[in-house]
């Protein structure tokens, strides 16, 4: 997993609530057996017509937002299917941060395991961010993971965001849970021995 420390980037606004993982990456694109390449089909049914042409009214096809690495989305982002492919698709398409006022549990975990930061803010802050981006599509936000802050140009105060301290360390250093769990071998074996009657 790649490290994540700081990011200064423009924003792609998607003011839709309850964006489910079937929208992020429709099931028919899940047939690959590797992690790469899902970005081309990110939001496929909102982004392309039935014959594969870009839909001009979808934000990812709007030239003003090209290259922006922060997705700003309505509340309850990532609900539905557990497919980690949704986080892979966002990452593969260049996103490194998703900001919403809350995330579905499985998506949040998958994002953190992919190196994509799910940055949760209040409903009011989210609304404010949508307004800022609506006024200036080139607004660049600064995300600093070490200080857990989001800096918005023109705002008097930085926004502080919560993140589990362990997951923060993982993201800062590019670690994942597997190394940690493997290191728990002795404790796991001891646990299995006292539970062996179950199997």
């Amino acid at each position, binding site marked *: 997993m790649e490290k994540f420390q700081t990011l200064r980037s423009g924003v792609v606004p998607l*003011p*839709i*609530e*309850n964006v*489910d993982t*079937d*929208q992020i990456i*429709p*099931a*028919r694109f*899940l*047939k*690959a*057996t*590797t*992690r790469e390449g899902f970005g081309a089909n990110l939001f496929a*049914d909102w982004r392309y017509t*039935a014959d594969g042409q870009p839909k001009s009214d979808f934000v990812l096809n709007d030239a003003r937002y090209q290259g922006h690495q922060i997705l700003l989305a*309505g*509340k*309850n982002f990532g*609900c*539905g*299917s*557990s*497919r*980690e*492919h949704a*986080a892979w698709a966002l990452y593969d398409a260049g996103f490194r941060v998703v900001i919403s006022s*809350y995330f*579905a*549990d*499985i998506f949040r*975990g*998958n994002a953190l*395991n*992919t190196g994509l930061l799910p940055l949760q803010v209040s*409903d009011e802050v989210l*609304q404010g961010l949508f307004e800022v981006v609506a006024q200036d599509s080139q607004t660049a936000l600064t995300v600093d993971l070490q200080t857990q802050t989001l800096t918005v140009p023109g705002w008097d105060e930085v926004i502080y965001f919560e993140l*589990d*301290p*362990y997951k923060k360390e993982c993201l800062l250093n590019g670690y*994942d*849970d*597997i190394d*940690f*769990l*493997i290191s*728990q*071998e002795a*404790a*796991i074996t001891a*646990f*299995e021995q006292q*539970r062996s*009657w*179950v*199997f």
Partner: protein
Amino acid sequence: MAKTLFDKIWDAHVVREVAGGLTVFYIDRHLIHEVTSPQAFDELTARGLTLRRPEQIVATADHNVPTRHQNQPIQDPLSRSQVDKLTENCATFGVELYGLGHQYQGIVHVIGPELGITQPGLTMVCGDSHTSTHGAFGTIAFGIGTSQVTQVMASQCLLLDKPKRMRITLDGDLRPGVTAKDLILYVISQLGTGGATGYFVEYAGSAIRGLSMEGRMTVCNMSIEMGARGGLIAPDATTFEYVKGRRFAPQGENWDRAVAYWQTLYSDEDAVFDAELQFDASAIQPMITYGTNPGMGIPLSASIPVLNGGSEATSFDKSLRYMGFQPGESLLGKEINYVFIGSCTNSRIEDLRTVAAYVRGKQKAAHVEAIIVPGSKQVEQQAIAEGLDKVLADAGFELREPGCSACLAMNDDKIPAGAYCVSTSNRNFEGRQGPGARTLLASPLVAAITAVEGRLVDITQYLN
């Protein structure tokens, strides 16, 4: 100290607590399928790791398989390669595979319970959000992403933060025509699609205890649709009766020992939940969804709500535009083009019996395509043994071979753009059943009546 059912099972699986409030949490059973496992096996190999407990993993092919001609090679090369990859990985790593053609093949959440792999007090995971189904047995079961699939493969553990506990109590006798599916669609319509995010839900009350195991599975299955990490129900005599004698159920002395333990799995009287909700089950009516998330449900005979502004307005309008519906209108009389009976929510033998009992001697409407996809080979064989295949065929229903099918339309079973489908599955998201498809979630009984009438009707007028 008084404990909830969830806490009792959770505490029995804590390997150790680590700094920051996280728990190294032990997983007893791991179910895998072709779509979310290949990258996990590759990751394992890339790191020079192997499976810690292959005997605690069971594999099947379900998401991506055709539901016709399963005895022939899969036509779609991508689907074929994914299923082949599963077969290859299971052979290499020594995992039991119930693949295509096997007598136990089927939807992962149908075969676990029917083989007795699912048992009270266990922890179970699968790279699939509907793993919550297994909670019907008093099991902590939940869906995980592929990185976590790798973690369980390598360590038999996950690093988790403990969810909050919610209890949803449903008391009262069900009205005629109201089923487990209506109960859960009602609950989700009250909580909304994110209303239980961060919680593990225990379902309780007389209406839940009165359900069969298959009904309880339908309820727990859809826990994720209100954002819950999972759902579970305290095991009782109905549970033990269901598990007894199944292929992987404990036998002999082990059975007695297991039941003695299982009987301790309930929420203590004074256990405290982080949230408690109560509903009068006797007031619940047959339900249907009108929008593009499972929280957008109403009684079949009610009207689509009218929203007055608020942050949801944009998404609500977008949803109704997609569905081709207007705020405030009734769904009764709407013509339906497809009926899909299947998925891990409603594809078990009782579901097929419900449909067959209603359509016996009747005909589906001429303009409706009615597909029924059994959840497993065992369900399919049971249906044939009971003669249900013939009843369904005579009524114009097409009985397919087992798989996830049009629930998520990964295979060829897709609903065309713009068409309306009454579906017994769990998600009505945009494009879920195919690009542009319009899904209305309902019970197998509502689906059967809709297929015959060809339009949405007040089903209470059609019951015997």
